[in-house]
């Protein structure tokens, strides 16, 4: 277990300084869209929330934190870093994410746009508006910091003139659709996940014929228990030709990947991920489908450790079944 006060200080400082929870260059958020012809204006705006793009950076950052948990001097170092936020500065200078992971996160977002296009859903995207929702501030109880950060997000979104915001991960979806609405921070806009839009327009999507293999489905806690996104991923996988294998705990009764406490208690987090990967591997599926970047990272790591099946984002599974 790491020092909570220090972790919170570092998190709040990072977001205040850069708008992002971990040190990463701003272009990391939108470089996936370069070369794609996505309009800047439209009724339906894609807001990624940045989690997929930040994942490779979060991976490096988390592994640095995990090392501190093991060291006797780690607590002292972290407390000093939290006090002066120097860890952020040091980390900002040395974070070098894996190129393969950066490319994978780009492919995920590009696949989502391709799928929406195949479903006949035209989305707009503005790199200057895209950013981090501030969800970790809210989860950690830093409400004042969250409200300040999100006010800026809400202003930017409102200025685009879009009526519907399309999200790509459960954490951003939950903040925009449920938390911000409850707090009165985003009253006018409709928020939908790309999974809901794809499911609504599924008859437009031209998937390849034939079987695609087996996939165990790992429901995100927020999608399943807070946002009622349970049927849509199943419908999409089935139509794409996959045989879905349900783990012992699925749907509304899904089991967490352990990811939300990765920065506070890395060892406990990885033990939970290992327990979950065991349940998913027990289905005998060829691949494990996730629909959240945090689940993807945590379960992928656990599957590597346990020698389990590959863990793949749902968007990639669906996109590889699109007719060319």
């Amino acid at each position, binding site marked *: *277990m790491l020092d*909570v*006060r220090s972790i*919170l*200080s570092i998190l*709040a*400082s*990072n977001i*205040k*300084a850069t708008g992002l929870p971990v040190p990463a260059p701003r272009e990391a958020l939108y470089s996936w869209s370069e070369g794609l012809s996505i309009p800047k204006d439209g009724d339906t705006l894609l807001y990624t929330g940045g989690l997929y793009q930040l994942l490779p950076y979060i991976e490096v950052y988390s592994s640095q934190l995990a090392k501190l948990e093991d060291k006797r001097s780690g607590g002292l170092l972290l407390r000093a870093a939290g*006090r*002066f*936020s*120097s860890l*952020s*500065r040091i980390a900002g200078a040395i974070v070098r994410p894996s190129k393969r992971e950066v490319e994978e996160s780009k492919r995920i977002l590009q696949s989502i746009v391709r799928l929406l296009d195949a479903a006949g859903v035209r989305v707009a995207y503005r790199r200057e508006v895209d950013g981090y929702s501030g969800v970790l501030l*809210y*989860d*950690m*109880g*830093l*409400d*004042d*910091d969250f*409200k300040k950060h999100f006010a800026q997000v809400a202003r930017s979104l409102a200025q685009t003139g879009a009526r519907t915001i399309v999200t790509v991960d459960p954490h951003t979806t939950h903040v925009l659709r449920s938390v911000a609405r409850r707090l009165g921070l985003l009253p006018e806009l409709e928020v939908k996940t790309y999974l809901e839009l794809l499911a609504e327009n599924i008859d437009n999507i031209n998937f390849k014929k034939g079987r695609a293999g087996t996939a165990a489905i790992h429901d995100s*806690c927020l999608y399943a*228990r*807070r946002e009622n996104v349970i049927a849509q991923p199943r419908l999409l996988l089935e139509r794409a030709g996959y045989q879905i294998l349900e783990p012992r*705990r699925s749907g*509304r*009764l*899904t*089991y*967490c990947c*352990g990811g*939300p*406490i990765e920065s*506070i*208690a890395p060892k*406990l987090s990885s*033990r*939970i991920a290992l*327990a*979950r990967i065991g349940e998913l591997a027990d289905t005998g599926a060829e691949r494990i489908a996730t629909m959240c970047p945090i689940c993807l990272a945590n379960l992928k790591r656990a599957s590597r450790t346990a020698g389990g099946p590959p863990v793949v984002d749902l968007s990639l599974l669906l996109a590889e079944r699109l007719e060319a």
Partner: protein
Amino acid sequence: MSGPNTIDRLRTWISETAGRCIYCGFCESVCPTRPLGPHRGYGPRGRVAMARLVAEGVTPLSNTVVESVYTCLLCAACETKCPVGLPIADIIRAARRLYTLEAGFSAREEKGRVPAIARR
């Protein structure tokens, strides 16, 4: 943004809401951290009890309490089993909010004593 009234309101809300817990423990069977944690503070029943005791001023916000509320995943699996329908994840988040207020996170910002990186 936040002042003493916020803390009082938060304490009252936690006390009243967590006070509805009947300590049946059904929630513990589905909590991912409970079987892997070192003590009962790593399960929903323990977390709710601690949040209530802290809110009512019976227990201080000790390291054990902070550890307990910050190792919660907020996954809300516990809520699927709660017979009284407690918003357990909201109670835990409120306890975290109480901690950040008591620990002076908001006050520190208001006084401008933000860490160096925030002033870059």
